[in-house]
């Protein structure tokens, strides 16, 4: 299956990409996608999106097909989906 992934902020920096088309396995979940991306982009990416136990960091925001997803649901990503990934950062 092919999906589109769009990166913002720090994630755009560590991937050196704004967006890409990505092949994923049928039935792949958000968490599996993030681990797959971490394999590609290494520790800087992994450190932003997951903790040391491999869980998705609470600060990560993921949108699927324009809707903010609840990470704790670990949603399955459908074929042709468009994902947007953004990590909120401290300061206010």
């Amino acid at each position, binding site marked *: 299956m092919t999906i589109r992934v769009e990166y913002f902020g720090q994630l755009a920096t560590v991937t050196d990409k704004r967006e890409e088309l990505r092949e994923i396995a049928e039935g792949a979940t958000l968490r599996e996608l993030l681990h797959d991306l971490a394999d590609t982009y290494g520790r800087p990416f992994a450190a932003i999106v997951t903790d040391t136990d491999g869980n998705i960091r*609470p600060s990560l925001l993921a949108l699927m097909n324009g*809707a903010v*997803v609840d990470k704790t649901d670990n949603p399955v990503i459908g074929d042709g989906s468009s994902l947007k990934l953004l990590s909120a950062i401290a300061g206010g």
Partner: protein
Amino acid sequence: MLIRLNERETDLPADMTLYGIRAMYKSDADLVILNGAPVREDAPIADGDRVVLIKRGEIPGRDELEALMAARHTPGVHERVKNAVVGIAGAGGLGSNAAAALARLGVGTIIIVDFDVVEPSNLNRQHYFVDQIGTPKVLALADTLRRIHPYINVDPRIVRLDRTNCASLFAGADIVVEAFDGAEAKSMLVESMAAVFPKRPVVMASGLAGHESGNSIITRKISDGMYVVGDLVNEARPGRGLMSPRVGIAAHHQANTVLRLLLGETAA
């Protein structure tokens, strides 16, 4: 002749003078402003002039103050914002400054939620004053907003926001401003609102620490209803502080995004 007297269209005899207007409409006025400039002696009036009569220390009535404050707005803006309800999650650097901007706009109702109190370290960027140290932020901010505009509704809530209460506290808001300090809280607010009100606009901020160029702080539209202000890169951490200029720039981006949304303009 027709003039604007305290921003109300007023029909006057052709030979009326400035002090004649004062005697007729507000004899206790101790400040007379003609076309934007204070005047200290009587002067003739011409058709189309703008005259403002003020008694120092007196709070004008609702209609008069709204007309006077909205006189410098773009026409049509005041009517669109006066019935709006805006929620602000967090009353720190972002929330307090965004709230002040929204109050000056005349946004009809502002719901402010925060559990914290004003501390001295807040004063480098947050819209508080020394005599407010120790006061719950939302109460201090409500007091300040009412001093800016006594006729808007300010709804301060001393509550720590979490996943269980965001949606209910902001159920009545047309738009919510995410104004937290912590990264996890920012995401929590966005996710919590999206779960219950998926079409409700949320204007978050991320990346405003330090003293990098203010031009790097921009507003991005991430999706319908989700806007992010900031450079998305510069997080607050030891060695990179939070200071008034960039925090204020971000807060005013947020307020401007709120205004644009209230006016039906959905582009970032």
